[in-house]
C-alpha cells in the first residue's frame, strides 16, 4: 500500500537509452499497466523499480522514500516473473514461504499466510508438489501466491500471462483484476498485449523507444490517443491512417486523402476548421467504418465507397480489407449481415465523431 513515483528516470545501456526521462506518479492502490512493443523500455522500467537494474539518472520513490540505492530485498515489493521463476528444488509451500522465512516470520504466521494465499488462488492441494509437477497455469498461480504472502507495498508483474494459452490467459486476467480489488494494493504490470492493458488497468502507460507516449485511463487512451503511435497501438485491428488534406469549399470542410473524400460534419468542423488547407494524418478506427445499410443511428455519418480486397468472417462481425481508389488498404469492422465478395464495391458510412487528425510532422494529435 504505497504510491510509486518515477522522477525523470533514465536508464542507459552503453549508447542505448532504454528508458528516457520517465516521469510517472502512480497512486496508492492503483493498477498501472506499462504497455508497448518489445524493446520499448517497459520491462526495464519495472526492473528499475524492483531494483534489479540501477538507475542511470533521476530518482524513484516508493511511498515517500527514495529507493535509488535500496537493494531489492528492502524495497517492500514483490514480483511475478514472466517465467514464474519458481525455485525448482522447493515444494510449492516452500516456494511461497521462502520470503517469509528469510524475514524470520514466526512459523505459525508463515503457515497461516501460505494457507490463506493458497486458498485464495485455489492451490491448496498442490502445496506438497514440486514446480516440475505443475502445469503452466498452476505455476503461474504459485508465482502469484509467492508474491501475495509477502504482503508487499507494491506488486510488480512482468508479462505474467504470456506463457499461458489463450483461454487460460482470459481467465487469469479476470482473476488478477479480482485480486487487485481484494488486496487493495498498488499493482504495476508490464505487458505487450493491449487487450490485457485495456481490461485490467486503472491507468495505462504506453511506451515506445524508452519514451512515455501517453498515460491515461483505458477509455481516454482509446478515445483520445495523444499521437499516431498510441492510436495505432491501442485497439485491434489498429486504427487506419491516411495522409490527407483538410479542404474547405463553399463553407464545407472535407478530408481528401487522394483515394477518397469525406465530408466533415458541422460538429466536428468546429474543432477542425483551424487546420483547413493544411496536410494532416487522418485516423479512423475500423469499428467506426460501417456498411452503409447497417450503419447504426446517432453517428456523425459521412459517406464514401471502396473496393473489397479480402473479407474475414469472425462470426459476430466481418473484417473487411478495403482498397481506396489510390490503392491504399484499410480495414473496416462491419455487421455480419453484410454480404460482399472480393472486388465488390461497398458503400460505407464513416462515423466522423470518432475520427482523429494528427500533425504529419510530429504525429501528435491535433484535435
Amino acid at each position, binding site marked *: 500500500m504505497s504510491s510509486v513515483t518515477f522522477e525523470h528516470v533514465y536508464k542507459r545501456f552503453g549508447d542505448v537509452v532504454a528508458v528516457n526521462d520517465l516521469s510517472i506518479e502512480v497512486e496508492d492502490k492503483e493498477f498501472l499497466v506499462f504497455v508497448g512493443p518489445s524493446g520499448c523500455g517497459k520491462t526495464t522500467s519495472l526492473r528499475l523499480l524492483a531494483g534489479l537494474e540501477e538507475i542511470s539518472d533521476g530518482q524513484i520513490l516508493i511511498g515517500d522514500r527514495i529507493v535509488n540505492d535500496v537493494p531489492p*530485498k528492502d524495497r517492500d515489493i514483490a514480483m511475478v516473473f514472466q517465467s514464474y521463476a519458481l525455485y525448482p528444488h522447493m515444494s510449492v509451500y516452500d516456494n511461497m514461504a521462502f520470503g517469509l522465512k528469510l524475514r524470520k516470520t514466526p512459523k505459525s504466521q508463515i503457515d497461516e499466510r501460505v494457507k490463506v494465499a493458497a486458498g485464495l488462488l485455489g492451490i491448496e492441494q498442490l502445496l506438497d508438489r514440486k514446480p516440475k509437477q505443475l502445469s503452466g497455469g498452476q505455476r503461474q498461480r504459485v508465482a502469484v501466491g509467492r508474491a501475495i504472502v509477502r504482503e508487499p507495498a507494491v506488486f510488480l508483474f512482468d508479462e505474467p500471462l504470456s506463457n499461458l494459452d489463450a483461454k487460460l490467459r482470459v481467465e487469469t486476467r479476470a482473476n488478477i483484476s479480482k485480486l487487485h480489488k481484494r488486496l487493495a494494493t498498488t499493482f504495476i504490470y508490464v505487458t505487450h498485449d493491449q487487450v490485457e492493458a485495456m481490461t485490467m488497468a486503472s491507468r495505462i502507460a504506453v511506451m515506445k523507444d524508452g519514451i512515455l507516449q501517453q498515460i491515461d485511463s483505458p477509455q481516454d487512451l482509446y478515445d483520445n490517443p495523444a499521437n499516431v503511435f498510441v492510436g495505432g497501438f491501442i485497439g485491434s485491428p489498429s486504427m487506419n491512417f491516411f495522409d490527407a488534406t483538410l479542404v474547405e469549399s463553399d463553407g464545407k470542410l472535407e478530408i481528401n486523402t487522394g483515394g477518397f473524400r469525406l465530408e466533415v460534419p458541422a460538429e466536428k468542423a468546429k474543432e477542425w476548421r483551424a487546420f483547413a488547407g493544411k496536410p494532416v494524418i487522418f485516423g479512423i478506427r475500423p469499428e467506426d467504418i460501417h456498411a452503409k445499410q447497417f450503419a447504426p443511428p446517432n453517428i456523425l455519418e459521412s459517406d464514401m465507397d471502396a473496393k473489397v480486397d479480402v473479407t474475414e468472417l469472425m462470426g459476430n462481425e466481418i473484417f473487411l480489407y478495403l482498397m481506396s481508389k489510390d490503392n491504399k488498404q484499410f480495414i473496416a469492422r462491419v455487421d455480419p449481415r453484410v454480404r460482399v465478395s472480393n472486388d465488390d464495391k461497398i458503400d460505407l458510412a464513416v462515423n466522423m465523431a470518432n475520427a482523429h487528425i494528427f500533425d504529419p510532422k510530429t504525429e501528435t494529435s491535433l484535435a
Partner: protein
Amino acid sequence: MQRSSEKPRQPGGPVQWLSVNAIGLFTALAIPLATFLVLYWGFFFLRDSDAPKIVIAIVAIVWGVGGVAALYLVANSLVDRLGDTWRARIQPFIFVGPAVAILLWYLAVPSLRTLWISLLDRNGVDFVGLSNYIAVFTTRNMFTAFRNNILWILFGATASVIFGLLVAILADRSRFENIAKSVIFMPMAISMVGAGVIWNMMYEVNPNVGLLNAIYTGVTGNNPVAWKAAAEIAPWNNLFLIVVMVWLQSGFAMVLFSAAIKGIPGEILEAGRVDGATEIQVFFRIMIPYIMGTIITVSTTIIIFSLKIFDVVQVMTGGQFGTQVIATQYYREYFTNQNAGFGSAIAIVLLITVIPVMIYNLRQLNDQEAF
C-alpha cells in the same frame, strides 16, 4: 519396403530351393571370405614385408582403417539379408559389439585374472585362499596407505570442489572471467607426472631452487625444511602432495561448475533477491541446491580420482616418508617386491572401494540425462 518376417514358402523340395537361392548364398559366403583373405594377407604383408617404411605406413593405415570399415560393411550387409525381425535384433550388436569385445578383453578379463592371482602365492602358483587379503588389512604399510587415501579424499577432493566452485562463482561475476578461468584451467593440460616434477622443485630443500623454502628461510630465518619428507609433521606432509592434485583438479571442477552456474535462469536469482535474500543466501539457498547434481557428480568423480591416485605420489616421494597410497603399495608389492598375489589383492581391494562410488556417480549422471 515392407518385408515379411517369415521367408515365403518355396514350392518344391530343398534342392530346388537351393538352386534358387544359390547366388544369394554364394555372395553371402564369398564376400566375408574375400574380406577375410584380404585382411589376412595384409597382416602378413605388414609383418614380413621389406618394402620402404613409408609404403608400409600407408598400407598399415589403409589396412587398419579400411579393414575396420570393411568388417562393419560386410557384417552389416550380411545382417541386411536376414528378415526384419532378425536384423533388428542383431544389428545393434554389429556396431556395439567390437567396442564391447575390446572392453571385455582389456578390462573384464584382466580384472578376473587379477582376482584369481590375488588368491595365489607370491609367484602366482599355489592357492593360498584369502591370506593375501588378510595381509592387506593387517600390514602397517597398508594401514598408512589407507589412511593417506582418506586424507587425499578428505583434503584433496574437498579442496578441489570448494576451490573450483569458488572460482566459478567469482569468475562468473568478474569482467576478467575468461582470463581467470583460463589460468585456473591451464594446469589441466599438464600431466600428473609433469605436475609432480614441477612441484618437486617448489618443495626442493635448497632454497636457491625451492620456492617454498626460499620464502620460509627468508621470512623466518630458520633452516630449510624437506617438506615432503619431514617426519616431524607426519602425516601432514601428505598435504604437500595433495596440493598438486588440487592444483590440477580445481580447473576440472571449475569448468563443470561454471557451466552449471550459467545454466541457472537469471530470473530465479532475481526472484530470490526480490524475495528478500542477501547475496550469500541466494548462493546457499538457491544456487547451490540448483547445481547440486553437478556438485555430486564432480565430487564423486574427484573422489574416484583420489582413490586411484598414483602418479603424483610415485614421482614426488615414491611412496616413502609415510606418503604411500593404495595404488603405490600395489605397484611396490607387485613389481618391486615381486609379490604377485599380494599386489593383486591390493588392486582388487582398490577396485572394490571404487565401485560403489562409481555406481553412485553413474546414477547421478543418469538422473541428469547425460546419457
